[in-house]
């Protein structure tokens, strides 16, 4: 834990130096470093680990045989290789859509019903905690989202198209805020996600605990909120569109160190 904390802090410090820091950004990063010890995300991680190992659902089974891409039950290192293609479902899936699959096939839940549950409530809160646990098992590792299968390559291109597609009431695209270096929204710098933004930034910084509203946010929630901020229609949980964006950002972030679960203001 300590080693990872030091690595994360160094990574944060180094990456922010490369970023071209304003005093305000330096202040925010110092605040984040102070918060990093005792990150409430650990509480969600602990719960997620317990859920992973607890027999649940109509089939009363654990998730310990869930294949996250590195073989059944292999959790360590799985997060930094997602999203990826899965032969059993014939789809490219991210962490959360893959958890839905495992919860259905192994535990007997209805994935379609789970996807409709409001975030932070009921089973969605459990999925959030399990996702936080799985992500934490790759903490400090570097992203290596695969581009071997044809579907993975296609999804990258789809993600890229979606990233730049302008729409909604404000004619925004992801690229409007995340398409260039040095952009900010009010006093918060936003990373350029068309390339590798650095260790622990952007794609490499989620799931994260947000101190401001005391909530643990997964990547799906982050994307959902991005679309809300752009005044787009709400994306379906675990939809191909959100997975494609994950592939685009994840491949762009190749080699960046994952600091998940991180902490945000």
């Amino acid at each position, binding site marked *: 834990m300590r080693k990872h904390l030091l690595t994360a802090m160094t990574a944060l410090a180094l990456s922010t130096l490369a970023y071209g820091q304003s005093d305000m950004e330096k202040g925010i990063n110092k605040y984040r470093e102070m918060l990093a010890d005792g990150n*409430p995300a*650990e*509480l969600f991680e602990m719960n997620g680990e317990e859920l992973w190992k607890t027999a649940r659902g109509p089939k009363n089974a654990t998730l310990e045989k869930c294949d996250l891409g590195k073989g059944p039950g292999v959790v360590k290192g799985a997060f930094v290789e997602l999203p990826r293609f899965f032969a059993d479902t014939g789809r490219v899936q991210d962490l959360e859509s893959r958890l839905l699959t495992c919860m259905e096939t192994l535990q007997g839940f209805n994935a379609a019903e789970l996807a409709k549950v409001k975030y932070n409530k009921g089973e969605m809160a459990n999925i959030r905690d399990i996702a936080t646990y799985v992500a934490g098992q790759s903490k400090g590792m570097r992203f290596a989202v695969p581009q071997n299968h044809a579907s993975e390559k296609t999804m990258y291109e789809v993600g890229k198209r979606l990233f730049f597609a302008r729409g909604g009431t404000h004619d925004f695209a992801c690229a409007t805020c995340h398409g260039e270096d040095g952009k900010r929204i009010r006093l918060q710098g936003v990373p350029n996600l068309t390339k590798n933004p650095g260790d622990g930034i952007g794609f490499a910084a989620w799931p994260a605990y947000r101190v401001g509203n*005391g909530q643990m946010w997964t990547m799906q929630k982050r994307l959902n909120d991005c679309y809300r901020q752009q005044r787009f229609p709400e994306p379906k949980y675990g939809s191909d569109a959100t997975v494609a964006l994950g592939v685009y950002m994840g491949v762009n972030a190749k080699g960046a160190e994952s600091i998940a679960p991180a902490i945000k203001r």
Partner: protein
Amino acid sequence: MGNPMRIRAKSANGETTVRVLMSHRMEGGQRKDANGKPIPAHHINTVTAKHNGKVVLSADWGPAVSQNPYLAFSFKGGAKGETVEINWVDNKGDSRTDTATIS
């Protein structure tokens, strides 16, 4: 019985440093919900830390402490392998006790 705490205790140079992350809503009691009804206060009132059965820290908390409180403190003594016990009691009478081994 509340949610589990995360406790880490490390001993160095005759002093033990303890870091605790507690899981608690810490609802102050001043907020109102979407319908305008006040959300009742639900927060930790007392925290007690023990080492080998002896109290090394006691605290009186209230609505001013934020959600999922993080507490770090140190005390003289403590050796690797010994236990530290943290207990909290909230205003609804709920309580939680967790122990950790000093590393």
